[in-house]
């Protein structure tokens, strides 16, 4: 069965080689070849693999999908049908549609202050000397999904912030999925911050049609010396979507990369974060909040490699699980022999609203240095009865009391969202979500033709 999957998905590449290599910049050729070789041996990860133990992706990969290999001419303007829930006055937005940089995006290419924001596909042609330095440099032959992404990506967002520059506004990337038939989508984003550069990113994933989506998106992030990057991810995809993201981060000396991922809705969501702290004093914060209900599955896997001394890393993943939902967290912290004075913290806690909801949390430490501070822990439990009674004894209804306690539980993560307005908007969304007032997208029935 898995052999067939390899054939199906590598077949997409082999049957469309002109599209994937011939028509594409030459720098992709070695990337594709390596990816093909690796994918043929790794295949789609099954639950036999340690890292994928809790989420079976094979059923999703076994379905039939359309592959979106060329951007369609849309017969409507995205901005007419899609209103984002996270508007902010000083924020600028760019959109991708099924993995391709949207043609009407106002930001394309060099910006007045010397930064570059645009399509990755186009950047490979316009600024090959920059892109080739970084593209696929975080790649490792360890995960078939990453190999598959390297094999099949055709576009995505490219951001380049040169030395001492910063994006002068928070940038919102809205990844939209729109299709008439079940669709497989691949996307690659590349974010490069050179020395002392800084950027603030918001990434939103939305489905606009109620068909089955299988997405295999990946983002590469390079934070140069003393660079500062904040990424807030908001995932709100439909119940039939299997949404896979891989974020690979390389951090140099004294760089700071802070990520918060909020999963409001999704069928099966799998987030991989692979962080390498390569320079002294680098700081990584990766936090997550997930609020599944029904039979949704949310699986976060974080791998932090401390390769240099004096680095800090911190993860807090929290979930509120309703109905028969299932969440998993695997956190692996690796501290190499040279990474003395490492501080690494990791915590996962879950609030289970029903007896059927289930969570698996597996913190793992692998430490080869002797002078380090590492802690990890996991908790799972129900709403605190004493706190419930206290609130109710002041006149607050049981429902409202439970809501206040859930919101408080979530607040521990949302407080890490850096922009005040954004945090406020996100909290409103969480508020709606917890009260079950968050409708599916209003525009969920958009068709392509």
């Amino acid at each position, binding site marked *: 069965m898995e052999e067939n999957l390899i054939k199906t998905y590598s077949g997409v590449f082999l049957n469309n080689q002109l599209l994937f290599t011939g028509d594409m910049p030459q720098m992709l050729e070695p990337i594709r070849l390596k990816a093909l070789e690796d994918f043929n041996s790794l295949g789609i990860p099954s639950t036999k693999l340690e890292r994928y133990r809790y989420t079976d992706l094979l059923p999703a990969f076994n379905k039939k999908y359309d592959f979106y290999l060329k951007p369609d001419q849309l017969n409507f303007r995205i901005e007419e049908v899609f209103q984002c829930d996270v508007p902010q006055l000083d924020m600028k937005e760019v959109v991708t549609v099924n993995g391709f940089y949207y043609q009407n995006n106002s930001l394309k290419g060099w910006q007045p202050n010397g930064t570059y924001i645009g399509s990755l596909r186009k950047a490979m042609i316009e600024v090959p000397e920059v892109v080739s330095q970084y593209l696929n440099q975080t790649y490792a032959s360890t995960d078939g999904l990453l190999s598959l992404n390297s094999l099949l990506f055709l576009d995505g967002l490219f951001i380049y912030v040169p030395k001492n520059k910063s994006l002068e506004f928070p940038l919102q990337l809205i990844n939209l999925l729109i299709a008439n038939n079940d669709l497989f989508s691949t996307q690659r984003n590349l974010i490069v911050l050179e020395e002392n550069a800084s950027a603030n990113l918001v990434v939103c994933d939305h489905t606009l049609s109620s068909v089955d989506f299988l997405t295999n998106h990946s983002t590469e992030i390079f934070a140069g010396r003393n660079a500062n990057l904040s990424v807030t991810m908001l995932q709100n995809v439909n119940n039939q979507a299997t949404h896979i993201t891989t974020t690979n981060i390389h951090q140099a000396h004294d760089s700071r990369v802070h990520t918060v991922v909020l999963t409001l809705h999704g069928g099966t969501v799998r987030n991989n974060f692979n962080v390498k702290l390569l320079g002294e004093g680098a700081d990584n914060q990766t936090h997550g909040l997930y609020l599944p209900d029904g039979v949704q599955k949310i699986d976060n896997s974080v791998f932090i490699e401390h390769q240099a001394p004096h680095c800090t890393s911190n993860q807090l993943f929290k979930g509120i699980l309703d109905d028969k939902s299932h969440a998993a967290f695997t956190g692996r912290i690796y501290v190499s022999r040279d990474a003395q004075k490492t501080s690494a913290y990791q915590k996962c806690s879950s609030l289970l609203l029903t007896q059927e909801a289930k969570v698996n949390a597996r913190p793992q430490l692998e430490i080869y240095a002797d002078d380090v501070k590492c802690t990890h822990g996991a908790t799972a439990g129900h709403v605190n009865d004493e706190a419930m*009674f*206290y*609130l*109710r*004894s002041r*006149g*607050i209804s049981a429902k409202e009391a439970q809501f*206040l*306690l859930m919101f408080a539980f979530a607040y521990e993560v949302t407080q890490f969202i850096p922009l005040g307005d954004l945090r406020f908007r996100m909290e409103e969304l969480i508020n709606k979500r917890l009260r079950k007032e968050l409708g599916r997208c209003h525009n969920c029935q958009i068709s392509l033709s």
Partner: protein
Amino acid sequence: MLVIKNLHASIDGKEILKGIDLEVKAGEIHAIMGPNGSGKSTLAGVLTGRDYVEVTEGEIWFEGKDLLEMDPEERAREGIFLSFQYPVEIPGVSMISFLRTALNEIRKHRGLQPLSSGDFLKLMREKQQLVEMDAKLTGRSVNEGFSGGEKKRNEIFQMALLEPKLAILDETDSGLDIDALRIVANGVNKLHSPQKATIVITHYQRLLEYIVPDYVHVLYDGRIVKSAGKELALELEQKGYEWLKKEVDAVTD
């Protein structure tokens, strides 16, 4: 205001209250005293609707309504307030959103409009002064990181804000130094009026020097074994509970 008739209650199948009769009228202050384990906190639990206490017999009427039929929040909205012996810390729930939600729920029940933010903050400041509570505390999460004394003051502050008809103070004096005790008692006295009633549950007589009761009841082994005026508290202070225990045990033996 409150009528308790032949109240029996158990926890985990063990009978703790074995037939309590008590009537509290508007304007009165009742003290319920008794040795540890006599059922004082269980009585407070029954009145406020703790679900681990099972009422096996008897009735409780609050202003003509059947109290035992009500959820804890309904009791609060009807005007019953419990000052907790051990106030709960709730990280992440801000004092302000907690109090505003509570106050507006109670106002709604009384047919009043919700307070605007401005009016609410004004009211909060006013009531804070009553218990000399540090304004910084209301900027925090509910009871989080509060000292023992601050927690008890916070209880009385909430009472001032929610304006209950019947206040039940469960061991409000335990863990308070004399200055804090005076402030808390002072707050309770200022809030008392001919339309309101207070039940003070305490092990010690000390609090009753500041909050002077009209009646003192001694609870022992799940029953009220003696009721009298405020002088009974003094007598208990001087002689302890032993003489009463002996008296009661002699009768029941």
